[in-house]
């Protein structure tokens, strides 16, 4: 059932599916300077974005960031206060929801309780006045795709949560929409089922070739399924990139902090050749890092480094550019990995992640051990906002 997990390496993006890098590619959806206000509240703030055919596009952000409003504008349940929304080059703002080649899978699934699974899936096809045998054929296909054949005659309240989720998916895919919107589709499922279903979703997306736009507040889910992730805050898209790009090269402290665990160190920058030295505490060696944006001497900057990029050792590792000494304050043992919280002499706390390649009895460090943290000058990211 599950397809191989999509690699999240950066190399993947350049060779495989990446229409956003192709200047000739025609976007399926275009938001052009879209603003949406509810009274005084600005839900979407002058937003411009292109989404391409066959993409699995994730809108990620905390609640109230505008991701659901954006999706509801695509479905036609909300109209923008200003700006244009184009689908395949045509402005769809004035088109009512029932006339759009867009279908939505609702967070609550919104299955019709008075209709059987079969009739739920056939509902949209019937509205198109298709022939009875065409409808039967298509419903059978959808039931096969979502493995629901033996539940066709049941009512929605007679099946389990996971099955309901698949009925909702089958119903929204039945009309073969150009664009499928998924509003927190896996929110109601438990963790194990959610993981299974994520791969199932990707599988179905690949099989049908439909463009998916998914709304979620679960960063792990967005990273797993999406070809691109848009991190949103206060009605703006802070960063739009591949999952690997978002994780490895966040463009702001907000994004770095929102996705995964990260250590943020603030300090003053000094440019030395092709490296920047960040002095973050008196008496401590500055952090040395590569940089890719203009920096002036003395500028206040933030430095973000992920715990798994930092090595914990008895001695400083000679081949790494950065070394910090500290004392282990806490160890979070998770089985496969352990998180070390290391207190620096300057008072700051850095977390580092180490794989537990040895068994417990032979592990190197314990509480209050003096250790060296080492990392390379390209492991972290220099952030100016």
């Amino acid at each position, binding site marked *: 059932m599950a397809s191989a997990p999509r690699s999240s390496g950066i190399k993947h993006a350049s060779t495989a599916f990446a229409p956003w890098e192709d200047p000739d590619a025609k976007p399926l959806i275009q938001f052009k300077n879209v603003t949406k206000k509810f009274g005084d509240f600005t839900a979407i703030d002058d937003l411009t974005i292109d989404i391409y055919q066959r993409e699995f596009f994730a809108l990620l952000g905390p609640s109230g960031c505008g991701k659901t409003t954006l999706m509801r504008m695509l*479905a*036609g*349940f909300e109209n923008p206060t200003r700006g244009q929304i184009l689908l395949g080059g045509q402005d769809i703002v004035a088109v*009512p*929801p*029932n006339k759009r080649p*867009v*279908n*939505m899978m*609702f*967070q*609550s699934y*919104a299955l*019709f*309780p*008075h209709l059987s699974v079969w009739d739920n899936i056939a*509902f*949209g096809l019937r*509205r*198109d006045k298709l022939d009875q045998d065409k409808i039967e054929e298509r419903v059978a296909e959808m039931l096969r795709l979502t493995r629901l054949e033996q539940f066709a005659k*049941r*009512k929605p*309240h*007679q*099946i*389990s949560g996971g099955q309901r989720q698949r009925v909702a998916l089958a*119903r*929204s895919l039945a*009309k073969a929409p150009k664009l499928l919107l998924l509003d927190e589709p896996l929110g109601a499922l438990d963790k194990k089922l959610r993981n299974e279903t994520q791969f199932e979703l990707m599988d179905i997306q690949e099989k049908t070739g439909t463009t998916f736009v998914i709304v979620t507040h679960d960063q792990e889910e967005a990273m797993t399924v999406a070809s691109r992730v848009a991190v949103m805050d206060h009605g703006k898209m802070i960063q739009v990139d591949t999952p690997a790009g978002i994780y490895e090269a966040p463009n702001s402290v907000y994004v770095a902090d929102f996705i995964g665990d990260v250590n943020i160190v603030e300090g003053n920058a000094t440019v030395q050749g092709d490296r920047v030295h960040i002095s973050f505490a008196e008496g401590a060696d500055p952090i040395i890092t590569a940089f890719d944006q203009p920096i002036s001497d003395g500028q206040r900057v933030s430095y973000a480094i992920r715990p798994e990029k930092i090595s914990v050792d008895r001695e400083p590792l000679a081949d790494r550019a950065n070394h910090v000494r500290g004392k282990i304050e806490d160890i979070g043992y998770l089985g496969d990995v352990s998180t070390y919280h290391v207190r620096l002499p300057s008072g700051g706390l850095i977390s580092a992640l180490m794989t537990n390649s040895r068994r417990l009895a032979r592990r190197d460090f314990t509480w209050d051990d003096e250790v060296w943290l080492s990392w390379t000058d390209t492991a972290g990211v220099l952030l100016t906002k």
Partner: protein
Amino acid sequence: MKRFSWFNATSLTLGFVFLYMPMIILVIYSFNASKLVTVWAGFSTKWYVELFHNEDFLAAAVVTLKVAVVSSTFATVLGTMAAYVLVRQGRFHGRTLFSGMIYAPLVMPEVITGLSLLLLFIGIGLDRGIVTIILAHTTFAMCYVSVVVSSRLTTFDHSLEEAALDLGCSPFEAFRLVTLPIIAPAIISGWLLAFTLSLDDLVIASFTSGPSATTLPIKIFSAVRLGVSPEINALSTIMIGIVTVGVVSASLITKRAAVKRARDEQSAERS
């Protein structure tokens, strides 16, 4: 299970006696052979036979049924529309005022409702008869229907309608194919409520009826003022019978549906 206690048994008995004694006496006396209501002279069904030969009562019964069916149907349509708009349109200017005005007739004394309707009918020159009773009953039953239907609509998941729109329904189709079937039980109970209210209304009907049309409650009331006759007892017994059958079957249907649903959900969880 609680154990038997004399206190519980006594209070239960007293309660039921208090509630049902008058009706039981009425039913018993409807089978009395004597013409004198208070003297028992043996079992007989002759009052029932006589009742069905009383043209006046039969005509009134027909009028009552016509009024009840037509007015409760109108009231259901109007009340459902009002409830739908008030629940669904979100916040618009004067929404609180409108919903307050829908519910106000519920607490308005019937005498006032009846009198104001009477003045209206006289004012517009409408002759009092079956039409005016229907109009009056529609007016006051409509707010009851709207209360019942709107309480169902507030718990109705709005995304069901959005899903219908999303799958290609026009707003009207979405209402007809999705909303209506789901809220149908509430609409039906609204209709039943309006029907019963219309059946036993005396005050409003007496203001709005004319010489051409009299309803059964008016007939009974005016007959009783000339003295209680066993015929009236028979008529009342029939009405009690109809209401009992209606209420019991309605609650049985509801109960059976609830039990079936619970069983289905259990079997779904097991599989």
